[in-house]
């Protein structure tokens, strides 16, 4: 007993200071790719090596629309090896409330050799078209933390309870979600708890492309939750179906089955990214008259 206490004292505090300090991520970590849209000569090599179709293009009427979809990206960095205009950053905080906020795109005019050089439209989100940085950068982390406290206090009257459902994941996301309960990330310091039943939960944290064999269980879990309730789609597979996409055994991303309030890209998203996504989700909540029930006694 005393030995255990001594061991803990000797170890000291290991908890990350995030979100008060920036995420503790290696400079070599592969986060989201950054594209020099204005100077990009040819999207085809990058699109060809992208395993999930996160980089894609459409040619029409002598023009080319090129897209980067972070919801599909597995951060493998193969595109950066194929195209000098792409660089991998170590930015891992990419969560967004709208699926469209994860898509960036640009229009080009095609050259005769099917490369493209001249930028017709400035880099913009494809849907809706806006010229803004990714939302993750707009949000001040401290503001998010404050928002969490306010919203959680206002909406739930107490802390946020999360029910996690693996609807088809490879278990990579589960490795990282488990990390949230470690002393290093310690999600409970925010008053956030993982609970054993959807009936106790405010937020459903869903991983994986939803498989045909899990679709019914996922729907039932969601239906068992009291309102107001939130859904977070985790990982490339949860956000978009990822490398599995839609096939005979999978339905694709979580939003093909449930309404999603926040998308947390990554393969898998690291615990910082998960924390950021969950805090983002809480800022979003709006009471839904259909699901709002009186709080349990």
């Amino acid at each position, binding site marked *: 007993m005393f030995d255990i206490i001594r061991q803990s004292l000797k170890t000291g505090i290991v908890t990350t200071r995030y979100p008060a300090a920036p995420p503790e991520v*290696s400079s*070599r970590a592969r986060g989201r790719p950054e594209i020099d849209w204005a100077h990009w000569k040819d999207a085809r090599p990058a699109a060809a090596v992208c395993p999930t179709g996160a980089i894609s293009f459409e040619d029409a009427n002598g023009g080319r629309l090129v897209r980067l979809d972070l919801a599909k990206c597995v951060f493998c960095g193969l595109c950066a090896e194929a195209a000098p205009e792409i660089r991998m950053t170590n930015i891992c905080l990419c969560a967004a409330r709208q699926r469209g906020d994860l898509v960036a795109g640009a229009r080009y005019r095609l050259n005769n050799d099917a490369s493209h050089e001249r930028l017709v439209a400035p880099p913009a989100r494809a849907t809706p078209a806006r010229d803004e940085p990714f939302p993750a950068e707009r949000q001040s982390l401290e503001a998010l933390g404050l928002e969490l406290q306010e919203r959680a206090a206002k909406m739930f009257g107490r802390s946020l309870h999360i029910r996690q459902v693996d609807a088809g994941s490879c278990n*990579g996301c589960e490795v990282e979600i488990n990390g949230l309960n*470690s002393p290093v990330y310690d999600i409970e310091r925010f008053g956030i708890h993982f609970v054993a039943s959807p009936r106790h939960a405010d937020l459903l944290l869903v991983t994986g492309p939803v498989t045909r064999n899990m679709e019914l269980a996922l729907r039932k879990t969601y239906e068992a939750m009291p309102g107001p309730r939130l859904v977070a789609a985790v990982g490339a597979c949860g956000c978009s179906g990822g490398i599995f996409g839609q096939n*005979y055994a999978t339905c694709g991303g979580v939003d093909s089955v449930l309404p999603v309030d926040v998308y947390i890209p990554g393969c898998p998203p690291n615990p910082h990214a998960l924390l950021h996504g969950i805090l983002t989700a809480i800022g979003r909540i709006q009471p839904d008259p259909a699901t709002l029930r009186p709080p349990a006694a």
Partner: protein
Amino acid sequence: MTLLPGLQVVLDELTRRFGAEIEEVRAPRPNELYLHTRPELAGAFCSALYKKHNGRLAGLFAEDARAGENVFLVYYLYALDSLHGFVLVRVPVPRDNPELLSLTNAVHAVNWQEREIQDLFGIKLIGHPNPNRCVLHDDWPEVCPLRKDFPARAQLPPFSGVRHKFRRVEGEGVFQVPVGPVHAGIIEPGHFLFSVAGEPVLYLQLRMFYVHKGIEKLFETLPIAHGVRLAESISGDSSFGHATAFCHALERAAGRPAPPRARALRTLCLELERLYNHVADIGAICNDVAFVTANMHAMRLKESVLRLNEDLTGNRLLRGMACPGGVRFDFDAGQLRALAALVDQFEKQSAELTEMIRSNSGARDRFETTGVLKPEVAANLGIVGLAGRASGFDHDLRRDFPHAFYDQVRFTVPVFTEGDVRHRMVVRREELVQSFGIIRQVLDKLPPGAIAAPIGEIPPGCVALGYVEGWRGEIFHWIHTAPGNRLARCKIKDPSLQNWPALAEVILGNIIPDFPVVNKSFNLSYSGTDR
């Protein structure tokens, strides 16, 4: 190609016994022997290989060869560990009314694999004791997804199907306790139906394949380079193990082995994968007996490895590191120093963790004699990997089929016969100690040179078996190449598929509150099983 001397002896003996019944012999590599024979003889070959050469049936799979050879082909993969060779017995199954004699009654280990073939290829297994569906649940229409005429992206209509049959134990005071597929913890989905009388469990029925994602079919639709990323997503906690087994198969098919430095870096990554998973499991086992402090220390140690992984390879789960022909990133002197420092620190701190667990009599009381897998039961079920090694299974591909850099390092394979939760934990602890030694030896001997050698385009029609001893056990990837640098078939065998049935055996007579810790002591991958 010359065969390994040991395999040549096996071939000579089988030729004497079966003569012209062996219609074709192929040895594309010295340790990989293919024999083509009649389907009726599959059982006779099985018993000949098992009785004479201790060959264990390590895998069973099919492929749709109707386009070329006008039949389905079924392969029985035997690992002859002491001879360091694999024998694959190949039998044709007619295209019309395909049927095959089941081996499950004799070899329990192939129960699920036979049913999988039945579900995915529509080959009927005659005489199977439980021929119900497993991969395709009961609400699937009649389809055979791994047949070539079935499109991978097919959208199947809703289908009500029949209700799944759960076998109930009946009698006074017997209760059924259904659990899952959505579990209470942060784990993968599966359904467990317990029948209990009072506290002890009388019977456990497993229902799996909730996370079946059509991975083997997807491999047939993707270019080989994309297949590596798909292999990383078979089981997230074994990303590097699976991707390396896949690359190993590609390299063997191409006849272009990875350069020495690549093999050394692979070994380092495989051992890092073993480190973070083993220590996380040791913690999680403690957590399931409410020894939370030990789990906190274990999670802290796991995090230190994940952060090093990120610094070495750019990804915490070692994703993006594997590539056909080698690895993608080299480690510089600073990174190698960081790795050496981590091993020193991890060794010291995991020893402290071990001592903390060992000295806690309450925790030990829960671990000892709980969930016992007797060696004879383990052998009957063909249990492999660390769970097998806690129950007398003295095999490890790193020693018996040296791959990567394992032929250049010295290590021992810890084997116990007690087979309880405690010894599955002790195997992990001992393997951690071996890993420290392996990593240090590799760092000492790290060869210079290229980290990858391009394997070029692989000709169509090649077959190859890739293998890796992952942290959980043996991982096999068997490929058959198609024109255009694509795959006609990729069979994935994760050790979890083999080991799940052990759980239904070991829980008998134990109490339900011990199920989580027993389950965690195996820590099998649902995704690796269901694919």
